[in-house]
């Protein structure tokens, strides 16, 4: 793959890798025995390995391919492999922490394996590791195909992909070592956050520069979603992570936001992480891979535009519904609640648009498990956005908040929507990228589909039950006006649901393993498909448009 870089690009890659390794060395020296020092060693090692890989093919012959006539797919392929590896890691950690809730002895009396340290490795592993790599890979694919132009860089896509994975490694290893900012979905400390800003701004510039080279006059709507995802995540990440380190040699930092402002900024970030990381980017996948797989144009392009602007502008204000009945001003809570309810309109517009696109192709949904993945994802998207709007209503929230209902809702979205649309997209993308006729085994795609659906349904039903029981037990009073149940009473009542939840998660993990095997065998074993003449960008000499 590195042989596809010209020698000057190899030089640039080497300079970048050595710079990262040196930065790691500085961190290691400044941090000494602190976690910052250990992270410095990890960064130095990461930079060193990349530098070594670049060196290994440094004097290889210059690439012969005609760049103007081909898309740049190497980073996409690596991104898919990394996404699946993170999926297995993140989902395994999820099953482990779920099992710990049922059987606390599974923490094995070690500090690093306590629930509080393992849980963020699960959330970071699945959201950023799996979701993030899948988003980077598919966005690189979609922007090239819909723009009919090659990526606007040869080294920068690698910088974005590998740099993002370095961030994930720093985050996850930091949690195990006991480092956290105590901010949901933003636990990584200041130095990792600064690194992510550099990587993410490069990602945005690369994406916009690629769009600027487009041969197709109109920017297809999937790119709008991907651009909103990249741009808004950059803003959210920077504002929420404004913090002052205790010293340059320590991993620990303190946020600049005080008290209730910190809570508001955190949940403005937290809910928009759901909106722009876990929704906008994946809607970009939906609007591209679903029509392509179904071989039908999207039902209404106008509706996709209306729902795009609805989603981007409504979500911005919805975060305060996480802070009902707190010190946050009442009108801000009401604002968040109102926007959350309004969000149902653009959300269902997207879900309905996807399902109506399939109208007339239901026989394909029946026969093709890949398309069924995307159909089920649209259904779960509709269900979980309805549930979310409902739970954001203040009196409903008084029952659901702090209970497992919230956890069930998040997983209806994360497993049912985000993961299913990702698997559907990857099963569409992998054969096309590796120039194969089809996936290695259709039966294994089918198996994966049913494992994923069964796992999601078991998980979500277990959490609905346990959440509503918890909520009701916490608000049941005796005739004397005292609470009828202690917290431990409610915990005992959760036991069977926690076992069911861990089992549902296990099924989902098994499905992901089946998917890994199938993708691996597709890459390794399946016969090459006939050449795809049309799958190339429009060369500059051609007249744009029809």
């Amino acid at each position, binding site marked *: 793959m590195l042989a596809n870089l010209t020698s000057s690009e190899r030089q640039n890659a080497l300079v970048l890798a050595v710079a990262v390794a040196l930065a790691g060395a500085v961190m290691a020296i400044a941090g000494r025995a602190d976690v910052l020092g250990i992270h410095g060693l990890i960064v130095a090692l990461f930079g060193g390995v990349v530098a070594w890989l670049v060196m290994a093919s440094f004097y290889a012959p210059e690439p012969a391919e005609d760049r103007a006539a081909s898309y740049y797919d190497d980073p996409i392929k690596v991104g898919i492999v990394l996404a699946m590896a993170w999926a297995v890691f993140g989902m395994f950690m999820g099953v482990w922490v779920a099992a710990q809730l049922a059987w606390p002895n599974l923490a094995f009396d070690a500090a690093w394996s306590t629930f509080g340290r393992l849980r963020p490795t699960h959330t970071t592993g699945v959201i950023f590791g799996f979701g993030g790599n899948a988003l980077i890979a598919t966005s690189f694919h979609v922007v090239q*195909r*819909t723009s009919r132009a090659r990526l606007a860089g040869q080294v920068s896509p690698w910088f974005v992909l590998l740099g993002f994975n370095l961030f994930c490694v720093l985050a996850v290893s930091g949690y195990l070592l006991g480092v956290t900012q105590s901010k949901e979905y933003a636990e990584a400390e200041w130095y990792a956050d600064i690194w992510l800003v550099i990587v993410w701004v490069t990602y945005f510039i690369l994406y916009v520069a690629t769009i600027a080279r487009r041969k*197709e*006059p*109109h920017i*297809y*709507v999937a790119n709008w979603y991907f651009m909103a995802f990249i741009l808004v995540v950059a803003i959210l990440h920077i504002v929420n992570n404004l913090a002052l380190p205790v010293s340059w040699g320590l991993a620990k930092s303190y946020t600049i936001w005080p008290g209730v402002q910190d809570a508001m900024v955190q949940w403005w970030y937290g809910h928009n992480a759901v909106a722009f990381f876990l929704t906008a980017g994946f809607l970009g996948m939906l609007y*591209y891979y679903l*029509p*392509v*797989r*179904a*071989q*039908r*144009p*999207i039902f209404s*392009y*106008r509706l996709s*535009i*209306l729902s795009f*602007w609805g989603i981007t*502008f409504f979500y911005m204000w919805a975060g305060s519904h996480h802070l009902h009945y707190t010190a946050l*001003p009442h*009108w801000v809570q009401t*604002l968040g609640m109102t926007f959350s309810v309004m969000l149902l309109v653009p959300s269902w517009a997207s879900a309905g648009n996807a399902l109506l696109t399939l109208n007339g192709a239901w026989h*394909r949904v029946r*026969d*093709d498990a*890949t*398309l069924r993945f995307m159909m089920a994802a649209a259904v779960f998207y509709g269900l979980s956005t309805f549930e979310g709007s409902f739970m954001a209503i203040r009196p409903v929230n008084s029952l659901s908040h702090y209970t497992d209902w919230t956890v069930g809702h998040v997983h209806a979205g994360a497993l049912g929507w985000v993961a299913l649309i990702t698997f559907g997209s990857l099963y*569409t993308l992998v*054969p*096309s990228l590796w120039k194969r*006729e*089809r*996936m290695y085994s*259709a039966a294994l795609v089918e198996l994966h589909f049913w494992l994923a659906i069964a796992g999601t349904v078991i998980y979500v039903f277990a959490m609905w039950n346990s959440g509503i029981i918890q909520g009701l037990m916490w608000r049941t009073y005796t005739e004397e006006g005292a609470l009828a149940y202690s917290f431990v009473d409610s915990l005992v009542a959760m036991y069977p649901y926690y076992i069911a939840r861990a089992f549902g998660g296990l099924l989902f993990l098994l499905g992901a393993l089946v998917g890994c095997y199938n993708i691996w065998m597709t890459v390794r074993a399946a016969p090459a498909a006939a050449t*795809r*003449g*049309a*799958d190339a960008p429009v060369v500059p000499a051609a007249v744009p448009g*029809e």
Partner: protein
Amino acid sequence: MDFSHDTLVAISKSWGLFYMMAFFLGVCAYAFWPRNRTRFDRAKHSILDRDDTPWQR
């Protein structure tokens, strides 16, 4: 200018509404502008005209 809590509330409750309304009208105008119809129709069909056809059983 005194940038107090009350100022923020006043801005949110007045201009917040108006700019959202204006934005909504702008988006609707863009989406339903008759001249954009051909552009949108082309966009939604153009992603399909590749050889990446799904596998048909």
